[in-house]
């Protein structure tokens, strides 16, 4: 698979949120306002690129080499959790403006299954290092795209008159279904 196809596949065809259902908690949780959606999208792109490459290196050069593949889940979650902590401390110290922008979204990323999911997918699909790097970045871009699109629509549904039982999460899920249907049109492109 060429890199161009990989990029299209990661952003649109296999969109992490709408086609693979990973990272749906922040998708529902942070999409009520455009501002928080943008913050979350940026934080995910930042962490996912780091996590995707680092877990690939650890898996290939440590776990496979020493026959410890069964420790994959534990190793990955520890790497992701400590990476998020480290990134948080680093940003606080050196780039306070960015830290203030990402703020509360950074710690939430530890339990974002999009991050862990992409790390596992990179391994399952037997990607090379460069492919993992590309896939991690563009999966994150796809996440951001879907989240920001969804936040734009959700801000408007707040103003619409929705029947009472359908309010809030229920209508949000149905809206997400419609966007997912739109993304469905990309199926079979790659």
């Amino acid at each position, binding site marked *: 698979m060429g890199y161009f196809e990989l990029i299209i596949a990661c952003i649109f065809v296999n969109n992490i949120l*709408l*086609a*693979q*259902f*990973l*990272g*749906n*908690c922040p*998708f*529902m949780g942070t999409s009520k306002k455009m501002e928080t959606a943008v913050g979350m999208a940026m934080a995910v792109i930042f962490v996912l690129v780091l996590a995707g490459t680092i877990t690939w290196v650890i898996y290939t050069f440590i776990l496979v080499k020493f026959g410890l593949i*069964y*420790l*994959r*889940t*534990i190793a*990955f*979650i*520890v790497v992701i*959790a400590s990476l998020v902590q480290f990134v948080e401390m680093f940003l606080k110290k050196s780039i306070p403006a960015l830290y203030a922008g990402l703020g509360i979204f950074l710690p939430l990323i*530890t*339990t*974002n*299954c999009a*991050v*862990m*999911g992409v790390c*596992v*997918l990179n391994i*399952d699909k037997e990607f090379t290092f460069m492919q993992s790097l590309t896939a991690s970045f563009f999966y994150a871009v796809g996440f951001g795209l879907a989240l920001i699109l969804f936040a734009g629509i959700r801000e408007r549904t707040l103003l619409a008159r929705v029947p*009472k*039982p*359908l309010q809030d*999460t*229920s*209508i*949000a*899920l*149905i809206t*997400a*279904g*419609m966007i*997912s*249907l739109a*993304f*469905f049109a990309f199926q079979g492109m790659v």
Partner: protein
Amino acid sequence: MAKTIVQEFTKGLWQELPPFRLVLGLCPVLGVTTTMENGLGMGIATTFVLFGSNLLVSLLKNIIPQKVRIACFIIIIASFVTIVELLMQAYAYPLYLKLGVFIPLIVVNCIVLGRAEAFAYKNGLSHSMADGLGIGIGFTLSLGALGAVREILGAGSVTVWGDMSYNMASAFPSFQPFSFMVQAPGAFICLGLMLCLINVIGD
């Protein structure tokens, strides 16, 4: 907070029924419920992890320091997820292949971490076990129900157990399955409508 063990158990079945009352852990809910069997399998795996992590967290709650508790919870949960992964590879390999990436992702299921943090870390052993089991069974039933609805509408028939199955065509000969339901968009819409139904019943 003086609830009996039975109350802790039953609240997971309705009052705090995940994922409808507690809108957490949506990824497996949407991702694996293409058939009822997958939904139930995922639910049982999650219940095991939830029960084990609640038990261990509540046992160790006096040893785990406040500041690093989240990291400790995650390690405990990850250990149980690894146990489930290995058990499923040994005894339920076809199901393991179908659920795929969602099995390791139980680690980051917000429900499991949420119960450890909000309940097991503050409550006694027997209450935590009841809570974990109740929430887990509630989660399993929800996943099974969602899977059954999607399978009936999307594929036209539902496999109940082994060879036993219910076919829509026998009751409604003109029924045409709409495959939309077992694919990605159907998951969101079906969950949204079920949430709406639960809200109506709840009121």
